[in-house]
């Protein structure tokens, strides 16, 4: 169980930090309520539709592109940890993997997925 102590400490510290900030803000912060502040928050914009309303399909595309790179990073981290033991073949395999991934990226780019009109 000893090896999990660090994780528990991290959880406790993160929770305490978040809780402390919320408590400090509510205790120390000035309170000037206004109707605008009571509205639901939507990235600084005035909400013009119900939260369950339609969403532009472009966000979906952006999310997919984000996953493309996110998954790449998920694989890169463990690879970087064992990079020295893998040696040259590990490097070649990762380059092949990134090349295949870049094909997908190139396809999205080529078809105008990165243009936000």
């Amino acid at each position, binding site marked *: 169980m000893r090896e999990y102590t660090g994780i528990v400490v991290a959880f406790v510290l993160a929770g305490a930090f978040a809780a402390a900030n919320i408590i400090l803000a509510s205790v120390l912060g000035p309170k000037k309520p206004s109707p605008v502040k009571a509205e639901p928050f939507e990235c600084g914009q005035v909400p013009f539709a119900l939260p369950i309303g339609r969403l532009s399909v472009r966000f979906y595309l952006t999310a997919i592109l984000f996953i493309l790179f996110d998954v790449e990073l998920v694989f890169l981290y463990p690879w970087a940890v064992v990079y020295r033991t893998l040696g040259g073949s590990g490097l070649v395999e990762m380059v092949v993997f990134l090349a295949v991934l870049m*094909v*997908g990226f*190139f*396809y999205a780019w*080529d*078809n105008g997925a990165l243009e936000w009109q």
Partner: protein
Amino acid sequence: MTDLVTVVPELILSGTAVVLILVARRVRRARSAAPWVVVAAVAAAFSLWAFSPATSMTGFGGTIASDRYARFFSLLFSGNLALAALLSVRHLDSERVQPAEYFALLLLASTGMMFAVAAVDLLILYLGLELMTLCSYVLVGIVRDKPAGNEASIKYFFLGSFASALLLYGIALTYGVTGATDFSAIASTVSRNGVTRHPMLLAGVGLVSGGLAFKIAAVPFHAWAPDVYQGAMAPVAAFLSAGSKAAGLAAFVRVCLVAFAPEQRIWSVMVVALAALSVMTGSLLAISQSRMKRMLAYSSIAHAGYALLGLVPGTPEGASATMTYAFVYAFMTLGAFGVVIALGPRGENLNGYRGLSTTAPGTAAVMFLFLLSLTGIPPTAGFTAKFAVILSAVRAGYIGLAVLAVLCSVVSAFFYLRVAVLMYMTEPQESESARLPVSVVAALAIAAAVTIVGGIFPNTLAVWAIPP
């Protein structure tokens, strides 16, 4: 590098797919992309013979096997890919589908099928099947402005992900009991530790079988097949009914015979139930169909049942019969779908076949051949394949199951030969005879050749069909 030799056909197919994705924007006509897919499929089939030694070898830490079993099915998938590419040329141009994307998905789905049959590890098996099904979901809905295709795609996706979850849960339970995902390691751990009756392992066997039964559309995991075949473009339906079924069957046979060999009493009961239900449901429901693709979907459900008959005894001879059945069925269903594609919109409905023998005698004759083969009438390959699987069920003592299969075969003659009656004994409605594209004619010729050769020389396939 020896690892890579075991996956040469997969590398060829996925490499071609990558090239197609790169040039996707520059490919406008399906006619210019299809030849490359056919060349890739032929090269993959050739590499099966050229790069693989006669003995079996494993690669990637003993997770992928290049044995005669895998090569037999990979040959089937190469043929399926080439025929599907040939059949889809005209459809893609008329439906305004992006040809490069379509062919890349076909290539990647075939790569997944090849990995699924070469896998000797449950996780690689899962990856292969997922690659196949993920591409299939997109292929089914590739005509974006057709509501039927979208509906089919969504249905297929939901049911398919559910089946994948079942399969994955079964893999997890099996791993929980045996601590292994390697097929032979699972079998040896089970028999060494004497855990054949472990409830978690039994659940694992059941879930894995259920997940694989979905891929081959065996009752009660068949509900997706009619809607998907109906909504998808005809070439996609042909590709799925031949390839997806063969991949699922191949995986099913290898998992049952190698990984779950000590559990034969359990899965053999399940296979009997799946086979009996599929044969009955498929044959009976196909009678009332008036649309060709839907009828062929129910027929594919029935044929999944016939193919499973060979697995019931769990013997190498039975498995060999199942392999032959999957091979023969792939080509006869590709042929029957090929005729549907050749006739265009007219071929979708049964009434479109009225008097086909006077307007297009050649097409009617090939269709008649495929219908005979699907029914199981000599001298076609369908007869010899069906004979072999029923014989293996009889040898194992399942007389009742064999009688049921023969009876359902008689029932199926009704709806298959009804099309033949429409073609040859009714008056034509319209007298237009369109010329068939060369690619469709080539595909029909290949399918017809396999159907005839397999029927006249039944041993040609049987000597290649070597179980795992």
